[in-house]
C-alpha cells in the first residue's frame, strides 16, 4: 500500500527502487552514516565489528535470493564462503595472482561449489535440499582438513595472507578503515545487484517457484534450471564474502567457518523477515548487535557474578541458547519478521483513522 499522493504514471516509476522524497531522504542519511560517519568516528574495535557485519550482510543477501526469493534452504553458506576464501588464499599465496583477479575466481568458485550441491534439486524439494547443503558443509571441511593436501590448503593452521596485501593504486586495504570501506562498498553493490535481480524476470521466476512449484512448472518455467541458477547466484555471494573475509582477517583457516554460523545466517533472514531486502539489513543488524551485546556485556556479567562452574561454558553456550531461542520464537510467533512488523506499522499509520480496516 503506497502513501497518499504517490501515483505510478509510467512503467519505469512502477519499477523504480526509490519512489518518494522521504525514501530518497532516508537512503541518503543511511548511506552517509554507513559510508562516511562510521569510518570517521568508530574506534578500531567497532570498525572491525562493522566490517564483520558488512561481510555477514553480503552472505545473507545471497541467502535472501536463495531462501527468501526461491524458497531453497541452505545450511551450508559457511562452506561456500570457505570455498571462496580458500580459492583466494591458494591463488594469491601459491600462484601469486593479483587479489583483484582473484575476485571473479572466488565468486565463480563459491557459485559452482554451491550449484554442485544443488544438483539433487532435479527430483527433490523442501528440506531434502537443506540436508544436501548440510552435507556440503561437512564435505568441504573434510577436503580442507584432508592431510595429504596440506601443502595446498594449509591444513589446520590455514594460509596467511599478510604477505599478499590487497592494494589499489596506493591504497592499502590491510588498514582497518580502508577494509571497512571496501566491505561497505561491496555491500552497496551487492544490494544493488540483489534489488535488480528481484525486479527482473529471474527474480519473479524465483518467487513463482517459491510460491507454487507445480504451478510455476505448468506455466512454462524450467524449475531445475532456475533452481540451479538460484543456487549459483546465492552461493556466489558467499564466495564474494569469503574473498572479503580472507582479506579482512589476513588469514584463511578452517576454524573460522562453523556450522552454527550457517544456522545464524538463516536466523537473520527469519528474524528480519523472509522475502524482503529490508529484512536482510534488519536481521543482520539485530542479530549482529545482540551478539556484540552478549559478548561484551551479558556473558561477562554472568561470568563475574556466577560461580566458576558456570562461567567456563557460558562463553560458548549463551550465544547459542539465546540466539537460538530468539530465532525459534520469531519463527513461531512473528513469522513475517521485523520487516513484516514494520510494514504493519506503516499500514496502520497510513490508514489512520480506519486502521482496523484491512483489505
Amino acid at each position: 500500500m503506497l502513501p497518499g499522493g504517490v501515483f505510478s504514471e509510467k512503467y519505469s516509476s512502477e519499477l523504480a527502487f526509490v519512489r518518494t522524497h522521504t525514501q530518497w531522504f532516508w537512503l541518503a542519511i543511511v548511506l552517509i552514516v554507513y559510508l562516511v560517519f562510521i569510518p570517521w568516528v568508530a574506534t578500531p574495535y567497532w570498525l572491525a565489528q562493522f566490517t564483520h557485519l558488512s561481510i555477514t550482510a553480503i552472505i545473507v543477501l545471497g541467502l535472501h535470493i536463495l531462501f527468501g526469493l526461491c524458497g531453497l534452504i541452505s545450511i551450508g553458506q559457511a562452506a561456500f564462503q570457505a570455498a571462496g576464501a580458500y580459492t583466494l588464499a591458494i591463488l594469491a599465496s601459491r600462484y601469486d595472482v593479483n587479489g583483484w583477479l582473484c575476485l571473479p575466481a572466488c565468486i565463480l568458485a563459491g557459485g559452482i561449489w554451491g550449484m554442485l550441491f544443488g544438483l539433487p534439486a532435479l527430483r527433490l524439494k523442501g528440506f531434502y535440499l537443506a540436508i544436501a547443503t548440510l552435507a556440503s558443509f561437512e564435505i568441504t571441511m573434510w577436503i580442507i582438513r584432508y592431510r595429504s593436501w596440506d601443502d595446498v590448503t594449509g591444513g589446520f593452521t590455514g594460509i596467511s595472507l599478510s604477505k599478499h596485501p590487497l592494494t589499489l593504486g596506493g591504497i592499502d586495504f590491510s588498514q582497518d578503515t580502508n577494509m571497512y570501506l571496501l566491505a561497505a562498498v561491496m555491500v552497496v553493490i551487492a544490494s544493488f545487484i540483489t534489488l535488480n535481480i528481484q525486479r527482473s524476470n529471474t527474480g519473479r521466476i524465483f518467487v513463482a517457484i517459491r510460491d507454487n512449484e507445480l504451478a510455476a512448472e505448468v506455466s512454462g518455467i524450467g524449475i531445475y534450471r532456475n533452481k540451479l541458477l538460484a543456487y549459483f547466484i546465492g552461493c556466489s555471494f558467499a564466495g564474494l564474502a569469503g574473498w572479503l573475509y580472507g582479506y579482512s582477517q589476513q588469514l584463511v583457516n578452517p576454524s573460522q567457518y562453523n556450522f552454527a554460523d550457517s544456522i545464524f545466517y538463516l536466523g537473520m533472514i527469519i528474524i528480519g523477515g523472509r522475502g524482503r531486502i529490508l529484512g536482510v539489513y534488519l536481521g543482520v543488524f539485530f542479530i549482529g548487535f545482540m551478539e556484540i551485546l552478549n559478548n561484551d556485556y551479558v556473558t561477562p556479567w554472568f561470568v563475574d557474578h556466577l560461580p566458576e562452574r558456570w562461567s567456563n561454558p557460558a562463553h560458548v553456550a549463551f550465544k547459542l541458547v539465546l540466539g537460538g531461542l530468539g530465532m525459534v520464537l520469531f519463527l513461531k510467533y512473528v513469522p513475517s519478521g521485523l520487516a513484516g512488523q514494520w510494514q504493519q506499522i506503516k499500514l496502520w499509520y497510513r490508514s489512520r483513522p480506519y486502521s482496523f480496516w484491512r483489505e
Partner: protein
Amino acid sequence: MEQMDQEKYIIRRLAALPGASIRIVLERLRNRSFLIPFSLIMAAVIIAALYITLALSDSSIEKAVRTIVTGLIWGGVYSLAALGIVVVYKSTRIFNMAHGGILLFLTYFAWWLMSPYDLPPWAALPILILAAAAFGLGLHWLFFKGMIGHDELKTFLATLMLGFTVLHGLTVLVFEGKQKYMPDFIPEPGFIEQGRINVIGSFNLNWELLVSFIVATCLFLIFVFYFRFTKSGLAMRCVSEDNVISQSLGINVKQIYAIAWIVGCITAAVGGILVSRYTAVYSDAGGMGTYVLVRALPIVLLGGLDSIAGAFTAALLIGLTEQLCSSYVNPHVDQFSSVLPYVLMVSVMIIRPQGLFGTRGIKRI
C-alpha cells in the same frame, strides 16, 4: 428413509475402523513392492559372503568377517536413531533435525545420573526413560503444539535451530561441555569371558556391542508392531496423512503429536547411551548428537522417510558400508569414513530420492 440408511451405513463403516485396520494392513503388505529391492540386496550380500569365503586367505577372511559383523551390528544401533526420526516424521510430518541435540542432552543426563551420583543402572535407566518422556512432552508443549498444521519447511527450520543451537548450548551450559566417559551399565552373564565372545580366529565380538544390537532391534520391532497393529498406531498414520480429517474423525491430534515426541525422545535416550559406550560423551565440534544424526540421515533417506522396515534394512546397509570403508578405504584415504555419511546422503538423494522403500508422492496444485 433412504437418507437414514445412508447415515447408518456411514456410522457402521466408521465403527468398523479398528477392526478393519488389520485387514487394511494385511492388504497393504500384500500389495507392497518392496520385495524386489529387498531380495536384490539379500542376493548381493550372499554373493559377497560366498566370494569372501571362497576367494580369500585365512587372515583376510578374518578381517572381512570382523568388518561385516561389526558393520551389521553398528547398523542395528544406528537404526534406533533413525527410528526416532522416522517415528516423528511418520506421525507428525515434522522432520526432526533436533534429534541429535535431544540425544546429546539426554546422554549427558544419563552420565550425570550414573557417574557423579553413582546411581546403579537399574535405578538410573527408568529415571532416564521418564526424563526422556518428560523432555519430549516439554518440547511438544513449548514449541510444536502450536505448530500443528504449519508447513514442513517451517517445522524443519524450527527443529534445526532447536537442535543445533538451543539444545546444544543448553547441554554445554548445564553439563559443562567436557568430554565424559559413560560408566559400564550393561550386565555381563557368567559365561562371557572379559566381555568378549570368540567368533573366528582371533576376532572377538564385544558383548556390549551385541547387547546394544539386540536392544536396538527389539525396540525397533516393538515400534514396528505398534505402528502396524495397534489402534493408536493406525491413528498416528492417519494423522500424518491429514490432521484436519483425523481430528474430525475423533482422533486426538495433539495427543498423537505428544506420543510421537515422547517416543522420539525415548529412542534418542536409548540410542545415545548405547552409542556413548564407544564414542565417549562429548559436545565439542557438533558433539555426539551430530555424530549419530548424520549417520541416521542417510539411513532415513535411503530407507524412505515413511517406511519403518526400510529404515532397518537401510541401517544395516549403512553400518556395513561404514565399516567396510573404515577397514578397506581408510588406510588409503585418510579419515574417509568420517565423510562417508555425507557422501552417501548426497548420492542417495541424486540417484534414488524416494529411497529404497519409500512411496512416491503425488503432487497437487
